């Protein structure tokens, strides 16, 4: 393998060991109740007390899986939104897609019996609703970068207001209020995982299929149409795919923000990566980011546990300002 090969694929090559380390840390990090060697012994077949077994298989493993799924899904959703709108500041959090999904999940919880499939369907409906709302507002007001972000902020505030109303009037509708609004992976139940996992898998596969067309957006709508892409339909499908991914994630981790902003913009530092490679990068790096954040927040302050979303906001807000200053907010969607 030539030097250039490694240089061009350094984010992928670096992402594999990173993800392996993140998975290991998430599964085997010790705390006051259980040590790393006890957990390791369990996996390597030396057995262990039943309590450890339960902790590992019922609590650790689902949580690790959920972290990885949310990290990958939200990063991929962010990448899709940024490419579809040619706007590096777009992400499921900022565009109000996460909060739309969250609001609809709580609303569905009030109106219907608690079925996981229904939760996911409601989340998708909410995510799509927000995306369409942002799109309609931005379409009316001119598709500039600033307008898209501002209409996202407006829709996000509206959805958050709805969520807060439900949480105030019916406090019992959310078990962990702070965790839900900040994004947390504490208390994940195994039964919660299969449907979102399937949806995230389908979403990322769909994104792989949409990727070559997404690649043409940057050339401008007219050029892309001339090359044989149905630009409007493809852009809608891309946003819908992002909504599906975000919705599935919200069902697992609540309103976890900034993942979809940080990861794709970091990958963008490596020029010339195709969208398919960037998607792979999102899976590796996004998964790692959430795994590390979650592991840190539950081990650092043991026996207390802070939501992973708190750390992500602390890191993510400066990152948002950095992207803003580097790329600027002016400029239309296409030159």
């Amino acid at each position: 393998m030539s030097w250039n090969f490694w240089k061009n694929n350094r984010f992928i090559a670096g992402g594999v060991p990173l993800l392996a380390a993140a998975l290991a840390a998430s599964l085997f990090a010790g705390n006051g109740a259980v040590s790393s060697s006890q957990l390791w012994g369990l996996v390597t077949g030396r057995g262990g007390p039943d309590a450890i077994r339960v902790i590992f298989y019922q609590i650790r493993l689902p949580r690790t899986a959920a972290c990885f799924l949310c990290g990958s899904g939200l990063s991929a959703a962010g990448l899709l939104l940024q490419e579809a709108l040619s706007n590096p500041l777009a992400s499921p959090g900022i565009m109000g897609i996460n909060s739309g999904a969250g609001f609809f999940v709580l609303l569905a919880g009030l109106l219907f019996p608690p079925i996981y499939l229904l939760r996911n369907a409601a989340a998708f409906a909410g995510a799509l609703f927000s995306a369409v709302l942002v799109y309609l507002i931005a379409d009316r007001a001119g598709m500039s970068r600033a307008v898209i972000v501002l209409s996202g902020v407006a829709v996000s505030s509206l959805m958050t207001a709805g969520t807060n109303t439900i949480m105030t009037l019916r406090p019992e509708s959310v078990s962990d209020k702070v965790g839900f609004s900040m994004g947390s992976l504490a208390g994940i139940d195994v039964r919660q995982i299969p449907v979102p996992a399937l949806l995230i898998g389908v979403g990322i596969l769909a994104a792989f299929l949409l990727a070559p067309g997404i690649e043409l957006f940057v050339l401008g709508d007219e050029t892309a149409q001339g090359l044989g892409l149905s630009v409007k339909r493809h852009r809608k499908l891309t946003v819908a795919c992002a909504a599906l991914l975000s919705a599935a994630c919200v069902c697992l981790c609540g309103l976890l923000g900034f993942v979809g902003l940080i990861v794709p913009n970091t990958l963008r530092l490596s020029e010339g990566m195709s969208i398919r490679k960037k998607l792979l990068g999102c899976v590796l790096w996004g998964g790692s980011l959430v795994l590390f954040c979650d592991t840190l927040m539950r081990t650092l302050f043991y026996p207390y546990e802070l939501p992973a979303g708190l750390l992500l906001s602390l890191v993510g807000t400066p990152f948002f300002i950095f992207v803003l200053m580097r790329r600027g907010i002016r400029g239309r969607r296409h030159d």
Partner: protein
Amino acid sequence: MIELENFSAGYGGEVKIRVETMVIRPGRVMGILGRNGSGKSTLLRALTGILPYGGTARLDGTDLSSLSSAERAKRLAFLPQQLSPVRMEIGTLAAHGRFARLPFSKVLGEADREAVRKALVRTGLWEVRHRKVDELSGGEKQRAYLAMVLAQDAPYLLLDEPASSLDIACQIEIMDLLRDLAREGKGILITSHDLPQTAACCDSVCLIDRGLADPVVPASDLAGNRDRLRQVMGVSLVPAEKGIYPYVLDG
């Protein structure tokens, strides 16, 4: 051959261009002449499927509106006037020309790579295919996008002012390339507001007067119709004593 009849197109119900009849033939370069805002670009956009149109448009006998975006792109390539200075290698840009021809996986095959290589050689960019498009001069950028359109391998090319923003040497280079392509059988439609150049480089010309297309005339007849030229373009042509074009502008 592309045939238009009672063709009209515009934005949001407002008709910006009407064409009674027009035929674009393989092996020929047709020039669309008109002032800014006369509807030249609207015509090209409508033929590409970016805007809806009324009337009939047939491409080698097939109704244009019945083709999917990909099917249309295999037969008809379009290059808009505004080309983004994208941060992308020239080779990657040219490879995007194959989009409509790729299989479901959208991975380039051997034949696709060969078509891209040919297009890059043709436009003189093969040696510099790793350079980034946003670092190129205006003329090089135009050629890079032309390479993309050539890789598309469509029998018809619609080019919106392919030369207007370039210096004169680059303009002549591009027009020579288009002439060569026509000689090889491509049907080419270009828009322009450069009278002497269009008269010299095109086989036939269509004048567009504020959204209404005149009947197509041979390029050699263009200079003879002084009054109409003056009405539509504001200037006319007179034979040149010497120079690169056989006609010069007359105020």
